[in-house]
């Protein structure tokens, strides 16, 4: 039930319908730098693309295999550091290794580490797997500071991607050249990961996730199936690490630390673990939240944390889950039914969330701004943060918005149920699964 249900066990033949999203996405990625040509935009897009690969790799574990890992950055970091060393080695001895092939070595190293760790950690999913991944994560993070020869200690390992011979005239001096290199690997890895989920091994990973005992009775070793997914995931995480090495030209302990491991869990879950494209949305949204929201407010982590908790509580399917909830309505051509109820609930909910955010911003400004600087600007309004009125307004907006949203939420749920029901039996199954609105307001 996880993936877009297509052909069950046979490898998909290439049809126009199958290939279209991929071709459109590739084309879009190719022209993107012409739309956003600033170097910083390209740097952010590079970062985003690498995060997408990593999140997709992580979802091979969490979404497809049901394995919760708290230390997956280890494989990204291991691959990245190896690539850094190869990069420096190739430069020192002027070996003829073209740069675009480098991430492959990162992948191989990530795979190597995964084969070792997976050999004992994939015995069961659930808590044991999660705890072993946490332990390994802590161990390697500690090693990254102690073993200076490989990890370079706190400064990390720097390198220069412009080593050696130009690759068909490209020297990789500029970010834009790196962008196309990363895009090539992004499309290739995403395609491979997608195809993997369609192979018998990928299908069995789902089966083992949902019911390991049943899979065992069918003659599949649950452990073996998990092991294969785990190794494949390590491989693609390693590729992401190799690309990171090329993009940043420096790798430090933070690139395999627990913080990054936690972040990728957050990204993947926000995006939605149930669908292949979920982590892609998660990576894009999170990177943007981090950069755009991070520019706007010091409290961005608070908002992201709240968004995350709300998602887990109300929408365990993540953004992708919310999107796909509407697929049946779209198929039935009943999306129109939803417009008015959605506006009625989501608009007040949106104002409630913004009001709450405004309240937090005012509190923060009151406490931290310099003496005499009492003016602050949020939502294009400038006012004195020490006066009572703005605070009262934010509280009022929050309360009223919340109340309105809560009042109309049952109608919205009913409308949704009606929209996915083929032959309108007047509001029959309403209230069975309330699609709560507040979190959705925060997510949009």
């Amino acid at each position, binding site marked *: 039930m996880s993936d877009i249900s297509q052909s069950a066990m046979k490898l998909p033949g290439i049809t126009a319908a199958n290939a279209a999203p991929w071709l459109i996405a590739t084309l879009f990625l190719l022209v993107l730098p012409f739309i956003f040509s600033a170097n910083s935009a390209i740097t952010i897009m590079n970062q985003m693309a690498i995060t997408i690969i990593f999140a997709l790799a992580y979802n091979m574990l969490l979404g497809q295999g049901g394995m*919760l890992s708290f230390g997956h950055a280890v494989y990204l970091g291991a691959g990245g550091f190896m690539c850094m060393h190869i990069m420096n080695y190739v430069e020192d001895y002027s070996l003829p290794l073209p740069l675009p092939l480098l991430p492959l070595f990162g992948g191989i190293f990530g795979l190597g580490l995964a084969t070792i760790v997976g050999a004992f950690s994939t015995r069961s999913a659930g808590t044991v797997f999660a705890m072993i991944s946490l332990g390994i994560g802590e161990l390697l993070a500690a090693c990254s500071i102690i073993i200076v020869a490989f990890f370079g200690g706190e400064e990390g390992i720097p390198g220069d991607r412009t080593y050696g011979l130009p690759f068909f005239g490209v020297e990789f001096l500029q970010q834009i050249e790196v962008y196309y290199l990363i895009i090539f690997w992004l499309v290739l890895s995403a395609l491979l990961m997608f195809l993997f989920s369609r192979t018998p091994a990928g299908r069995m990973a789902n089966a083992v996730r949902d019911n390991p005992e049943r899979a065992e009775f069918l003659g599949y070793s649950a452990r073996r199936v998990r092991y294969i997914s785990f190794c494949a995931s390590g491989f693609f995480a390693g590729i992401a690490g190799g690309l990171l090495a090329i993009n940043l030209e420096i790798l430090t302990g933070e690139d395999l630390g627990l913080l990054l491991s936690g972040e990728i869990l957050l990204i993947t879950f926000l995006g939605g673990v149930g669908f292949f494209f979920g982590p892609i949305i998660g990576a894009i949204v999170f990177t943007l939240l981090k950069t755009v929201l991070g520019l706007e407010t010091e409290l961005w982590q608070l908002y992201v944390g709240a968004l995350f*908790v709300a998602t887990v509580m109300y929408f365990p399917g993540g953004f992708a889950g919310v999107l796909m909830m509407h697929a049946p309505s779209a198929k039935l051509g009943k999306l129109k039914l939803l417009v008015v109820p959605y506006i009625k609930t989501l608009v007040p909910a949106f104002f409630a969330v913004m009001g709450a955010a405004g309240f*937090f911003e005012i509190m923060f400004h009151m406490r931290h701004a310099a003496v005499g600087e009492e003016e602050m600007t949020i939502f294009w309004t400038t006012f004195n943060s020490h006066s009572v009125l703005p605070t009262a307004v934010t509280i009022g907006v929050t309360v009223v918005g919340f109340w309105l949203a809560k009042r109309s939420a049952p109608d919205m749920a009913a409308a949704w149920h009606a929209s996915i029901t083929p032959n309108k039996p007047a509001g029959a199954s309403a209230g069975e699964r309330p699609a709560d609105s507040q979190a959705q307001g925060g997510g949009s």
Partner: protein
Amino acid sequence: MDLILVNIIDGLVYGLLLFMLSAGLTLIFSMMGVLNFAHASFYMLGAYFAYQISQTMGFWPGLLIAPLVVGVMGALVERYGLRRVHQYGHVPELIFTFGLALLIEELVQFFWGTNQMAYETPEILQFAAFSIGANSVSAYKVFMIFASISIFLALLYVLTRTRVGMVIQAALSYPKTVEALGHNVPLVFMGVFGVGTALAGVAGVIAGPQLGTFPGMAILLGSIVFVTIVIGGLGSLWGALLASLLIGWLTTFAAASSFEFADILLALGMERPADMDDSILRDLWTLTLPQIGPILPYMLMVLILVVRPHGLMGKRGV
């Protein structure tokens, strides 16, 4: 010799502190089958609340009020958060508590800022209880030992000797039967979660002045608490006690030792390289045991999970 005796006491203090945290966590796990990732965050909240109370009323009221507040918050989290997520399965539950831990850390930073708080031990305990060699053991440490042992005894008494304890124990194994007997099992769950987090709150109140009250304190201690209950065996109170003391002494003695890995290399017949930078083993040559002391529990955990997945005293696999 003196130093070893002092280390035994210090290890005991640290181990008992870990136990106060892991007791609540293991209780919650045995009840609901979920590892509460945010457990250490409640420990942090305990310390911050107690600090805030101590600013106006002194240390002792904080010791009483802060854990109560934390316990109520914990019960609310169970009632309105965890119970809702429960329907989606164990992995989302774990992820929910993970998110909660993030959120609590952000909220603490929002309200108290990122600086370390000047949360101090009560004045009547600010003297050296006794000295061994040149090392003095503060009265506060003695208080910590007594406080945690009495909490353990009280917990043991409630769980094994009272009616409430019987219901809880029964609800652990046969929730449906207990419910059929007319007990309100969801209420029991909420109560256990509240008590478990309140215990973490007590630990925070007591440890805050000793180990520092700052936003990183939850993360710093959080993962080691999981390690403790995983090593001890999930759901086993005695296992948690054993593992806490084991880890307390392990880290203390590792930090106190002056063992160098170079000794092993020399014993293996290798020669100390003249120029360290050329040797690929240079990091091993300079490595000492105190350097990796805090990581030892993680190694132990991975080892235990590989050889004995249900931990030292756990009855069931996880």
